[in-house]
């Protein structure tokens, strides 16, 4: 009896202690770090070129660099910037990663050789000066000699060569880095602080590549000595912030680099960074991201939920930024090898029937504008002439189908020809955000011209398997980039068909030739013309069509200043950001 009693008491004690523990954590309110007293809403002033934005989107501010107009108050020291990001990450090495999010984060721990402060305007980064040979096959960079990596080793020509060679080596499985490195041949160390980068064929987009976050020099010593820890528990670059810790798919913590003095004044640097820490937190749920900003848990939201944007915009405690995406908005790819999308009439009809405004109104909650070309208007080489080709026209779309023999003979709303129903297999990743909504819209959209869209939402693995083997008629595509080369090559060049990224499975020698020609053209004006010609050709052949030019939506603490919307907003940069209080 007594033994039993004893055990019983133990259990009771356990329950009591645990409930006490629980009670202890219950009523304690979290101190809210952010105290907002500033009521006046800051105006975001655009430095540099004015916007080449269409009239109907007057609220859109296209800014390569955002700086504030207010006289600079003393930066508050000892602060942390916490940033909520919408997508996960793999390895925290931008030269190897698959993820744009890694580029955004790692840019703070590194420096590109040169910075692009406005479209096409480059200023020195780790390289003091640079030159390009006539046919854009050789780039020479003169490097700064006063830069050290976070591990104390000097930055020099060897480090640049090491970084580029490492990206090019297939054994390292570089993704973003490799795709922007182009037809890389090798890097020659001329002297300690001069490198010559050579390409197998002309490669004009290299300055854009090298000013992005994917070809940033990393410490050779650290890479070689770290093994598996590299990019996970260790990362060594030259940037204003140093790697502190990372929890995979959850958070990355960086601390200020006190020795940093090579930041470009154009981005607001006058020495080391002005805050102590930057913390990135991956918050998959969009609603949780907004909640985290509202509750003061984070200071900056990347990808604000559209439906929350207006209320944040009206709230004096926050600043908001909306800028057009530089890249490729949601695009519809047509598999040219699978009936019925192998038929020009079907593709043409679908292109004409794309209710882009309807898509914006519903899926995008009114944010964005209908797109004209395959690339958005902020990408190099975009030309508005593409707007005149194949504008939205349902009647025309129906006519095209009828002329091709697709008619609804049995009255079920779906057209057929020779007993074959006009059914399009649309494949999408069911586990990715928004894709389901997009699919639902597509189905409704094409039903209007008698095309049935069969939605095939697959889990990631099944999806890649299906589209790489060409089971799809259509799939979606989305891309970030300020330069057209990588994007257009990926989805249009015949070298990427049958399992690669050209899921249009389009092999057109003329299009290939235009892609090669623009890459090889060092003169920007001439290059832009070639890109424009290419875009028009894609549109005329209904090879691939985008729905929208989406808006990038950011919101942040109103006391945070000098957040740079680097590369047309693709990489929000906090290197020289500070709090006014």
């Amino acid at each position, binding site marked *: 009896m007594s033994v039993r009693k004893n055990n019983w008491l133990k259990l009771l004690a356990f329950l009591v202690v645990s409930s006490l523990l629980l009670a202890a954590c219950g009523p304690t309110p979290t101190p809210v770090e952010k105290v907002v007293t500033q009521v006046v809403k800051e105006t975001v002033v655009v430095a540099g070129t004015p916007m080449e934005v269409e009239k109907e989107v007057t609220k859109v501010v296209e800014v390569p660099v955002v700086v504030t107009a207010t006289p600079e108050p003393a930066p508050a020291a000892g602060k942390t910037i916490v940033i909520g990001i919408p997508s996960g990450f793999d390895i925290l090495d931008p030269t190897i990663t698959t993820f744009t999010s890694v580029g955004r984060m790692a840019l703070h721990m590194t420096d590109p050789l040169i910075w692009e402060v406005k479209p096409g305007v480059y200023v020195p980064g780790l390289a003091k000066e640079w030159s390009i040979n006539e046919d854009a096959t050789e780039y020479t960079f003169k490097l700064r000699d006063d830069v050290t990596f976070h591990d104390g080793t000097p930055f020099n020509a060897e480090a640049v060569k090491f970084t580029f060679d490492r990206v090019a080596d297939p054994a390292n499985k570089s993704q973003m880095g490799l795709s922007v490195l182009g037809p890389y041949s090798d890097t020659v160390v001329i002297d300690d602080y001069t490198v010559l980068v050579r390409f197998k064929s002309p490669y004009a987009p290299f300055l854009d590549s090298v000013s992005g976050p994917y070809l940033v020099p990393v410490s050779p010593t650290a890479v070689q000595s770290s093994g598996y820890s590299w990019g996970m528990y260790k990362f060594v670059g030259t940037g204003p912030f140093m790697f502190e810790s990372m929890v995979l798919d959850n958070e990355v913590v960086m601390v200020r680099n006190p020795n940093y003095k090579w930041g470009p004044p154009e981005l607001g640097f006058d020495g080391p960074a002005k805050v102590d820490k930057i913390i990135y937190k991956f918050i998959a749920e*969009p609603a949780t991201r907004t909640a985290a900003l509202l509750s003061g848990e984070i200071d900056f939201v990347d990808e604000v939920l559209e439906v929350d944007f207006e209320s944040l915009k009206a709230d004096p405690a926050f600043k908001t930024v909306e800028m057009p995406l530089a890249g490729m908005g949601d695009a519809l790819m047509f598999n040219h090898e699978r009936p019925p999308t192998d038929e020009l009439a079907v593709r043409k009809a679908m292109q004409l029937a794309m209710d882009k405004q309807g898509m914006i109104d519903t899926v995008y909650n009114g944010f964005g504008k209908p797109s004209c070309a395959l690339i958005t208007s902020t990408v190099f080489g975009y030309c508005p002439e593409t707007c005149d080709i194949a504008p939205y026209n349902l009647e025309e779309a129906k006519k095209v189908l009828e002329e091709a023999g697709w008619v609804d003979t049995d009255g079920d709303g779906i057209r057929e020809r020779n007993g074959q129903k006009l059914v399009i297999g649309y494949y999408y990743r*069911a586990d990715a955000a928004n894709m*389901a909504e997009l699919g639902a819209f597509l189905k409704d959209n094409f039903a209007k011209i008698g095309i049935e869209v069969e939605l095939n939402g697959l889990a990631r693995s099944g999806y890649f398997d299906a589209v790489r083997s060409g089971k799809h008629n259509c799939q979606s595509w989305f891309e970030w980039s300020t330069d057209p080369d990588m994007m257009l090559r990926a989805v249009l060049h015949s070298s990427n068909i049958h399992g690669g990224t050209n899921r249009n499975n389009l092999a057109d020698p003329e299009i290939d030739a235009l892609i090669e020609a623009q890459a090889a053209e060092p003169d920007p004006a001439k290059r832009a013309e070639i890109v424009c010609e290419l875009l028009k050709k894609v549109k005329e052949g209904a090879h691939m069509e985008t729905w929208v030019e989406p808006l990038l939506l950011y919101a942040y603490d109103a006391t945070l200043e000098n957040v740079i919307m680097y590369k047309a907003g693709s990489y929000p940069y906090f290197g020289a950001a500070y709090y006014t209080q």
Partner: protein
Amino acid sequence: MSNPRMSLRALDSASLDKSEVEPAHSLWMDALRRLVRNPGAVAGAVLLTLLILAAILAPYITRYDPVKMVPSERLKPPSAQYWLGTDPFGRDIYTRIVYGSRISLRMGIISVAIASLLGVTGGLIAGYVGGRLDTLIMRLVDITLAFPGILLALVIIAVLGPSLFNAMIAVGISASPTYARVTRGMVLKTKAEVYIESAVAIGCRPLRIILRHILPNILGPIVVVATLGVAGAIISGAALSFLGLGATPPTPEWGLMLSDGRNYLRAAWWITTFPGVAIVITVLSINLLGDGLRDALDPHMQR
């Protein structure tokens, strides 16, 4: 042989395994009488009947199309025109909920059917035949239980591809071990009864014994577990939809509506509130009925 875990597991359904050795028909009549006297169970049954009626009569009690998009009518709050408001595609939420009841009820019932078919068969064989087969089946059940439910469902969906039907299969398979355990426990108990022994003695064939004598006796508890399982399956289906691996849009499945609408929690509360309420009411009524059944089938519970 029997392990304490197993015998205690039967307590899971603490009051379930008390099915009496009475002639089946009077047991059921008594149970029905007790059920009718339980206000909760009656309420549950009435609600459920209404839901089933709504599912059947869907086209007659709504004015709109559940999938057709009307962008001009998007995000309208509840009004006389749209009783429960409209969603971001301008679809009437009331209409979608009514049509969705077909899908969600089907989701619950079919996955439970799959689960009980697999589980009861396995449990019957394991319990009646015993020996190696018993060990094998119960090991399999142990292994399945070692995968937490939704993870097993995820693997199954990764194999089969996401769709409503595959979600039902996945939820069904991952729920089946519970049925196997309950059934086996009940069979072991029933097998020891005198009348089964005598049936064996007079030379009845095993299949006949299982179908005629054992099954009717263990049906009560299984019906209870299954009823409650329907509710669980609807919730699991919603969880799969949240992960994007359940029903395919634009299907008006409640879980999918709830999951798709979750970004509008602040901007348009009605998008998630009503499908959520629909799930709660359905699950609640099924659970009330299940509880009532449990009480009714257990003579010990009449107080």
